[in-house]
């Protein structure tokens, strides 16, 4: 897909492609190229898009546009970004995952089958955003797709593993949330005192490992 380039106000330019994994992988490569070529640029990666934020009094939008265009072109044949693999231990069901039965009923599966399907996938980290350390994951089994809750919870505990629409993810900190909660992990996705503070990075992959982590 040919990228579109659009200004977002006077201080940002957005390059948009498709949300297909192949395009996202290319965006990871493009981001790495830009980091090498323009270490001072402020990049924000989304799902199927990459934004450069800038100060219009010190940078010309036309030059940034050129830099983005050529990095996209060069990203086609650039070395792939090899991410890390992570195993995330999850306690499914019970108090840790109060909506497991709801997801099972919606999908016509048993709770055990939901756990097996959810834990069978290798998920890809598309990007980090929304909340500190929050991964946008690709790879949810279609049978587990379920609309968000009608009533979002005021307080979803940190580490909760949930499903909302076509996405699954982990809440890195306690926050309001509308996803169905099927489990919880003790793995810390974000720690401001750590460098880097986020455990996961774009291009990483992860697998959920069912366990009785709370007993350990």
């Amino acid at each position, binding site marked *: 897909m040919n990228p579109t380039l659009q200004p*977002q*106000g*006077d201080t*940002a330019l957005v390059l948009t492609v498709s949300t297909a994994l192949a395009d996202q992988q290319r965006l990871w490569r493009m981001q790495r190229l830009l980091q090498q070529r323009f270490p001072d640029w402020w990049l924000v990666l989304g799902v*199927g898009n990459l934004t450069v934020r800038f100060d*219009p009094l010190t940078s010309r939008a036309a030059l940034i546009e050129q830099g983005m265009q050529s990095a996209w072109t060069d990203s086609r044949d650039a070395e792939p970004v090899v991410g890390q693999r992570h195993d995330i231990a999850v306690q499914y069901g019970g108090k840790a995952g109060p909506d497991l039965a709801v997801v099972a009923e919606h999908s016509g599966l048993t709770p055990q089958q939901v756990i097996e399907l959810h834990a069978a996938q290798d998920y890809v980290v598309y990007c980090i955003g929304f909340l500190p350390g929050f991964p946008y994951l690709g790879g949810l089994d279609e049978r587990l797709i379920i609309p968000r809750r009608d009533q979002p919870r005021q307080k979803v505990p940190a580490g909760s593993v949930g499903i909302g629409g076509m996405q699954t993810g982990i809440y890195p900190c306690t926050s309001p949330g509308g996803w169905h909660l099927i489990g919880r992990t003790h793995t810390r996705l*974000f720690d*401001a005192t750590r460098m*880097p503070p*986020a455990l996961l990075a774009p291009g990483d992959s992860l697998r959920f490992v069912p366990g009785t982590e709370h007993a350990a």
Partner: protein
Amino acid sequence: MSLRILKTGPQCSVQDLGRFGASQWGVPVGGVMDIPALLVGNLLVGNAPELAALEVTLGGLHVRFQSDAVIALTGAWVPATLDKQPLPCWRSVPVRKGQTLALGWAEQGARSYLCVSGGIDVPIVLNARATDLASGFGGFEGRALKVGDILPLGVWDGHAPQASVRAPERGEVLRILPGTEWTAFSQAAQKALVSEPWRVTPDANRMGAWLAGPDLGLDPPLDLPSHSVQRGVIQVPPSGQPVLLLPDAQTTGGYPKIAQVIRADIWRMGQFRPGDSIRFVEVTMPQALAALQAQRQWLVQIENQLKWRIQ
């Protein structure tokens, strides 16, 4: 060298220019709502621009100084006293150890800044001293300030100008550029955005301000893949009522963006309070850049003038 919090008002936190570059980890930029107010305040007390100050929402802060210093109150005009003597805003004022500063309620505007020589010296976390209230890190123990907190002040060389600066007028206009999804909105919605007044609802915090006015909703609603959002974005969730994104906004979002407040007017957004009315005026990119240029020149002029008054 420190100061002690005696009263906080509705909300008070340590803020600076924010966390640039931390968005790669999903961390909001944060920092002060009104950047020029912090920059001028720091100039008035002889500080480097990046030093931290106290951001006071709607007034009500009382502090006692536990060492000599120079202070400046900038941002929203607020009646203030130093040991019961009136103290003007937007002016450098020497204070003595043991003196008490008391802020009344802001008469207009929403955020005042207490800048102190040496800056508020909390630890730097992810490249900034700003408090991330939602995630609970940075600033003073990652939280809003409470009565009894003792805030350390940074080293000060004893030099600060004796000067005042004329406060800029906020007005009720925010200048905008069309957003990335501008053309997805109906002509009626586009027209309503720039012709109707918008009321700031009580649903306003450091992440965003929910506005009330005509319905701008898209039919069918547009759900976009997650993409970068930043302060000044005007996004329209399915409710049809726009949200103005502020410094603590999440780094990415999925709602369509009808417009973007120009950089030169970002500071004004933090000075609106619930019940205030906002008007949006569309400008061109060259007009936006000219406005930003004028703002920078204003800041450079103040810096040059104050250089001569350092004592």
